[in-house]
């Protein structure tokens, strides 16, 4: 028995040492072509999947921020340009709408022993994606600044505004708050985050009828606008990357920022003295008297294209399972909030986990949510700039959404 154990250990050591990933992946032949968004966690997975390349197996990866623009056309052609599309709650929807990805039940049964049940994204009873990480925007704050201003760590947006006022009053910072509200995707995401925190629904049950035109919508807009009083006057040009820079430059005390960027904030690079050691990650603030964090929960996962040969699909699934293996996760613990078996949250994952534990809601997966996101992204800009009132802004969003949803065939 001991000998067998020794043998197993030494074989494993050999396999790791020699980088003999081929043996681990066990792929005989095929072509794996990955399309993904471009951030560190996904690049890490791509690199791990590429370990499966051998004489008979090609593995290529295209990590690009434009992935959403190209995924539908690239998977529509036959054979598809990519065999794997990495998606999130929102970007899986266009692929489902056009029936471009295949159910994975048989592949999961065959190769998915390492996967956890919570990783399986099931739609209509069929496994359509394998999630591997969670993400979401949550609060980052500077405990030293809050202490100097004599305020408790904020729990709600009322607290955030009060803390900002105290910090400004004490002359500690001119613009203590930051939010990614650049018109476009970011601004819409900010509204979606806050609206989810109110507990209300975006659409009437069972239809594409928009229902944000209510007191919850108004409360959300009020908070978004109240915050701008404590934000850099250029706030309408700030996206998530920009506020990260402002924060690392020590100009911001409280912000809502992506969990996937927490690792980059907490590392020793790029921040002025005092920022890293005083940064605390926490759940997103609650809003409008609600009790759940006002931020969408996101998962990132992979899907396998429909228009490819079964052999390529099998090879792709195996390579991706290797890419998101517990070994990869152990080697890159702090890169993301992993959903992979054996993960123990590190310091960078605190915020996302706090959101999830606080009962934050997932980003909606309705097929018409993208249309709402686009409508929000353009129609809220004038409100944020202060040239329009909240009622008008909500009416504009509804009008823009209705126009788009009629054109897309979701509304009569």
């Amino acid at each position: 028995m001991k000998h067998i154990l020794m043998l197993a250990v030494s074989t494993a050591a050999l396999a790791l040492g020699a980088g003999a990933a081929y043996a681990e992946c066990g792929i005989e032949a095929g072509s794996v072509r990955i399309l993904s968004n471009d951030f560190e966690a996904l690049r890490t997975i791509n690199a791990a999947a590429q370990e499966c390349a051998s004489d008979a197996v090609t593995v290529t990866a295209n990590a690009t921020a434009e992935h959403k623009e190209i995924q539908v056309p690239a998977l529509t052609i036959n054979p598809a340009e990519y065999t794997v599309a990495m998606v999130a709650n929102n970007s899986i929807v266009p692929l489902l709408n056009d029936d471009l990805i295949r159910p994975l039940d048989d592949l999961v049964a065959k190769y998915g022993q390492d996967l956890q049940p919570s990783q399986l994204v099931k739609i209509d009873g069929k496994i359509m994606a394998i999630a591997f990480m969670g993400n979401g925007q949550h609060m980052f704050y500077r405990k030293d600044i809050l202490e100097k201003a004599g305020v408790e760590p904020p729990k709600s947006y009322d607290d955030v505004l009060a803390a900002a006022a105290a910090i400004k009053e004490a002359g500690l910072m001119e613009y203590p708050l930051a939010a990614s509200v650049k018109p476009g995707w970011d601004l819409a995401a900010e509204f979606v985050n806050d609206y989810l925190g109110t507990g209300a629904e975006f659409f009437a049950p069972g239809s594409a009828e928009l229902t944000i035109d209510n007191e919850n919508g108004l409360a959300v807009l009020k908070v978004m606008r109240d915050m701008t009083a404590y934000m850099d006057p250029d706030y309408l040009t700030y996206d998530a990357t920009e506020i990260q820079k402002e924060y690392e430059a020590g100009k911001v005390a409280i912000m809502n920022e992506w969990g996937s960027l927490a690792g980059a904030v907490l590392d020793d690079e790029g921040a002025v003295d005092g920022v890293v050691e005083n940064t605390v990650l926490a759940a997103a603030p609650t809003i409008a008297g609600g009790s759940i964090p006002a931020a969408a929960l996101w998962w990132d996962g992979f899907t396998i294209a429909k228009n490819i040969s079964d052999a390529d699909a099998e090879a792709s699934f195996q390579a991706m399972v290797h890419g998101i293996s517990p070994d990869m996760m152990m080697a890159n613990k702090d890169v993301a909030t992993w959903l992979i078996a054996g993960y123990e949250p590190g310091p960078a994952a605190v915020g996302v986990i706090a959101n999830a534990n606080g009962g934050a809601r997932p980003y909606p997966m309705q097929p018409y949510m993208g249309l709402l996101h686009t409508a929000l992204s353009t129609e809220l800009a004038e409100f944020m700039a202060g040239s329009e009132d909240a009622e008008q802004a909500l009416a504009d969003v509804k009008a823009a959404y209705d126009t788009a949803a009629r054109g897309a065939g979701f509304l009569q």
Partner: protein
Amino acid sequence: MPHKTFFAFILPSLIAMVLFIALPIVSVVVQSLYVSHEQILVEVENCQPFGGCTKELRVDSAATAALREDQPLGRFNGLGTYVNRAHLATSELGAILATQAGPGEKFAQILNLPFYKALIFTLVYCFVVTPLAMALGFAIALAVNALPKFTKGPIIFFSLLPMIITPLIGSLILYWMLSPNGVLGATIQHIFSDPTLSLRASPALTWGALLTYGVWTNAPFSFVVFYAGLQTVPGDTLESAMIDGASRWERVRYVIIPHLAPLATFVALVQLMDNFRVFEPIVGFSAEANATSLSWLIYNDLSGDSQQFGSAGATSVLTILGVVVLLSPVLVRTWREFKHKAV
């Protein structure tokens, strides 16, 4: 040239023009008349890592595929897309005009409609940038023409720089320079001793920055053309004007400008067309909150979480119509001159 030779000569260009200009335009026009199929929605159970399982609507892709097979273009919508709120907004416009509000209030309400908001900026950009850029280009051309020969080369090179830089990069560079941490932004704050002054925060200043950028980037083209034109000004006429005691300004006014007038028409034509599809500076300056253009609307329809091809097609057709309307006075004039000469 015999007709056959002429035809053979232009045939490749003709084919290319049909393939790359005419057909795409026809395709855009056709697509703008259609909208997506009715979506057939079914309720299914979605299970995700967060939030557990929920009942949600989903597009029935098999049924939709059948619909698509039947009518590949989608539902015929006629001019419906053109008159909806995202474009000409005829019913919204009618409602606004029918209210008792004052003209200022009405104008503000019209500007709240996305198409008109974009159109206003596009037109302002066209009509401010084109003449200013032409005037600046002409001034530079006159100045460079008066320089001693050995300095001309380097000066011409530097004058052309704005044109050599890709518009997106050029606008990004200016945008960074104008940020409060940038050299121009900090200087402006210092001059007005107002630390909160930010070119990016105020709509008026954003417009100002975009228009300045437009003049800066468009001037080199006018300069090059006018400079070439200046080389063709008849020396005899200039000399006789000098003998008659014409000042430098009078020579410019009465000899050079009339001589360059046909060139100016050409430059105006090209620049108007160029400026009507202003796009890059808006993206480069992150100015979407304060300024949008027709091209930006098309981009916005085609990017993001859901593409709206019919809507983008309608905006494209309206842009083409806009260019035709803008250019028609110049075209009519050129046509008249042409006929006049022929007689």
